[in-house]
């Protein structure tokens, strides 16, 4: 099936016209170029609809997207970015964020101790390491349950372990409300352990007293000096 260009002043053969219609209708709908000659396939060049001229509903069996998703009312949780370390490092930082745009973020971290010593991974916003953070913690370690409140902290805990005989694997789930206008809040639950030995569970509620600055970066950094091992991974999700 070929595309027949209609020449001005000529009588068009009906079979050529049928071919052209088959070209348009047949098979999968591919984004074709608009040259008017070959109508070759294009990639990422054309839209379906526009911001002001929308289709009502897209019906399909499957949805496969290569880049981004957005909704008008932020109805989806979408991966904003992730870092999986391929070498040891002292921090993982996500920049170029817009805390007022997403409003809420979720960070899911899988941490691997670099050495069998203590490991502390803290989180700060916009590079602020002044005494502007506070927390209330609930901890379970063996049969010991404890609680603590801290004010005027220079960071919040993301995950940590003080065990010195194991190379702990740590896991953290932190939900963050990051819109300006009031203090920013976090809810975090994290753990650490190795093989079948879980060293600690900790639940921490955090607050950052800055009410004015749009959050543009979140930095997770090792404050123990022992570093993050290869394989340490942090996913940052946002509402979009």
């Amino acid at each position, binding site marked *: 099936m070929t595309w027949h260009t209609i020449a001005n002043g000529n009588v068009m*053969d*009906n*079979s050529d016209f*049928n071919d052209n*219609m*088959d070209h348009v209708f047949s*098979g*999968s*709908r*591919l*984004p074709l170029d608009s040259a008017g000659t070959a109508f070759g*396939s*294009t*990639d990422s*060049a*054309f*839209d*379906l*609809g*526009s911001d002001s001229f*929308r*289709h*009502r*509903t*897209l*019906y*399909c*069996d*499957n*949805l*496969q*997207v*290569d*880049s981004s*998703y957005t909704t008008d009312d932020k109805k989806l*949780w979408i*991966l904003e970015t992730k870092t999986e370390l391929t070498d040891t490092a002292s921090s993982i930082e996500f920049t170029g964020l817009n805390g007022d745009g997403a409003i809420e973020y979720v960070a*899911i971290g*899988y941490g691997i101790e670099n050495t069998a010593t203590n490991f502390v991974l803290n989180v700060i916003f916009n590079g602020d390491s002044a005494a502007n953070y506070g927390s209330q913690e609930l*901890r*379970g370690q*063996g*049969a*010991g*349950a404890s609680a603590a409140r801290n004010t005027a902290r220079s960071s919040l805990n993301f995950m940590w372990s003080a065990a010195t005989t194991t190379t702990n*694997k*740590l*896991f953290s*789930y932190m939900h963050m409300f990051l819109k300006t206008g009031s203090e920013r809040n976090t809810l975090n*639950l*994290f*753990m650490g*352990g190795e093989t*079948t*030995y*879980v060293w*600690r*569970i900790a*639940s921490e509620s955090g607050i950052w007293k800055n009410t004015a600055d749009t959050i543009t970066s979140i930095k997770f950094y090792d404050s123990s000096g022992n570093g993050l091992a290869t394989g340490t991974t942090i*996913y940052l999700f946002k509402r979009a």
Partner: protein
Amino acid sequence: MAWVTMTSGQVADASDMNERFNFLCGGTRLPRSSSGVDFTSTTGVYDLGSDSARWNDVWTNNINLDGSVSSASNTIWGLISEVTLSATASSIEFTSLTGDTYTSMMIYARMNVDTKSNQFMIFNGDSAANYGRQFIYGQSTSVASGRNTGLVHMQVGLVATTTVRLTGCRIMAHTKSGHERSLIVHTYGGASGTTIYRDIEWVYLWNDTANTITSLKIYTDAGNFETGTSIKLWGRK
């Protein structure tokens, strides 16, 4: 509006031409057959774009999917499977999973059990002593904590009495092989009226570092899950 096939050598009727353009330009865009005759509507046959020839943006008020959602780099949480019991059962199992593909899974479970019992979860049918945990819970004004190693399963639910038989949990799991698998579980045990019997936070390790997670099973150690028990499994897709 009817599709009229044009015949070579004949003069096309203008109204037939108009109808063709109405087919092409008018109203809703439907996926049509490629017979070249009547272009009847089809369902589940044709794609919009392809892996190497993509539309740029799709602007639509709604997206209605019947099947799956996927992305090139697992950027969205998609439902893998959902089970709501229409008859009693002692377990619910999800199979044919690919834990290394999802890398993370979420589970939301609301479980009604017909007797005092505990609810457990295992991966890949592994009921050997390969699980460990640390937990902390609150029960009225009491707080308690504990650690266990060498467990044969991971507890995710608790029905503490024979009369208060609703429990539920949210589970976040790191499911990628290469290291121990980690889970954070938040459970309410024994809910009735305005009373929650216990709030529990458990964290677990499964010490299998090599095997891709292909199944997970949630079961009760006594009685059965009742009709309406619902478990939703999500993965990054």
